[in-house]
């Protein structure tokens, strides 16, 4: 089995920036980039589900999320990073070199050994956990507005959530839908001021404040959403044909439970830099960041992890 200097788990802005930097440092990184999915847990990460990214420095006219990720991927490859499209299924951080198993390599033998590990597995969009949500996924329930908005032309649909991603999705969906109702459990949005202003100025966006979604209705496709008012407990069915879920994310850290220190919400704990509680294991991006969660902060922390790895390997080599 091959032993690498560094293996990177994940291929969003954090993982790929770490790949660019470690590749340029001649560490020949192996990026286990994840496997295709229709949620944010996929090669390229959350930006694969976005359209226009307006706040990434260097793109005054904005850039498409998937294009940005393809560009960073190309940059990593140019400097010699190896990328494999599979997901890590197990890690052993108790002995060194660390061992990583993948879906492609199977359960029996680890796919690779590595001296240093960079964890950049990101965050996964949360689902509501409703009785009929899974059954109707792809039949009106969607986790990807950019993929599925097209199918709801001139229809009335709903977005559940109150943060930036919910409002961004709602605004994107107004390009297609007749009305987009934002269902939010409170009486104010968490989204940034600029996004709120855009939402309130758009006459296709309607607000359903103080409401929680109880279930999705429909036999073969969505015909409505049952909501409960949190102020008086009354229930009603909103007659919508689509429900887009944007209620936030949880870190993809279950692979490391019991091996890395996680906080109560599951984020990997890093101290001062990208270092985790296991020497030689570094974390970057949304799997360790519940505060900023931006493409640019993920990329920045990926750079930090790469430099931390380089120094750690160097120090270890000299320590004999």
């Amino acid at each position, binding site marked *: 089995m091959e032993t690498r200097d560094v293996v990177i788990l994940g291929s969003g802005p954090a993982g790929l920036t770490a790949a660019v930097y470690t590749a340029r440092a001649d560490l020949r990184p192996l990026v286990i980039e994840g*496997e295709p999915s229709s949620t944010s847990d*996929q090669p390229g990460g959350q930006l694969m589900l976005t359209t226009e990214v307006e706040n990434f420095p260097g793109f005054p006219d904005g850039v498409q999320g998937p294009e940005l990720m393809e560009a960073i991927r190309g940059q990593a490859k140019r400097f010699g990073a190896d990328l494999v499209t599979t997901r890590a299924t197990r890690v052993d951080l108790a002995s060194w070199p660390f061992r990583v198993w993948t879906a492609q390599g199977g359960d029996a033998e680890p796919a690779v050994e590595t001296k240093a590990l960079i964890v950049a597995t990101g965050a996964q969009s949360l689902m509501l956990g409703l009785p009929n949500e899974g059954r109707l996924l792809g039949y009106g329930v969607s986790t990807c507005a950019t993929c599925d908005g097209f199918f709801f032309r001139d229809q009335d649909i709903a977005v559940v959530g109150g943060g930036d991603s919910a409002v961004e999705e709602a605004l994107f969906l107004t390009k297609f839908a007749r009305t987009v109702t934002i269902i939010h459990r409170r009486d104010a949005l968490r989204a940034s001021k600029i996004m709120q202003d855009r939402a309130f100025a758009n006459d296709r966006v309607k607000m359903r404040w103080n409401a929680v979604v109880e279930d999705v209705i429909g036999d073969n496709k969505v015909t409505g959403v049952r909501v409960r008012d949190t102020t008086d407990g009354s229930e009603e069915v909103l007659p919508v044909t689509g429900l887009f879920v944007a209620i936030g994310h949880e870190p993809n850290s279950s692979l490391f439970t019991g091996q890395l220190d996680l906080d109560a919400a599951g984020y990997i704990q890093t101290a001062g830099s990208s270092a985790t509680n296991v020497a030689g294991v570094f974390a970057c991006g949304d799997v360790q960041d519940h505060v900023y969660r931006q493409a640019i902060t993920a990329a920045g922390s990926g750079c930090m992890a790469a430099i931390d790895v380089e120094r750690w390997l160097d120090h270890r080599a000299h320590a004999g």
Partner: protein
Amino acid sequence: MASELRELNDATFDEHLVATDVPVLVDFWAEWCGPCKKLQPVLEEIAREQTGKIEVTKVNVDDSLEIARRYEVLSIPTLILFKDGNPAVRIVGAKGKARLVEDLAPYL
């Protein structure tokens, strides 16, 4: 998006399904769908490995909305495997190769 997979459209879809002896997997996709792009190399790999057992094709929903509507595609990527011209199994959302092969195996 350049692809080694055959592209079907509203005009050629029915005729092609009738004329093909092996099960036909149809990938409903579009240029603006990130997960669809990541799925394409996986489908090309499956097509190469299963030559003679399955034909993998693509329908661009932007160009061929009629076919997408007929099969009530509301999310992409959606994969539908047709046997003898009829839908045998439907897979919604992008997946890794091993999972797709597992999902398709009972129908091949």
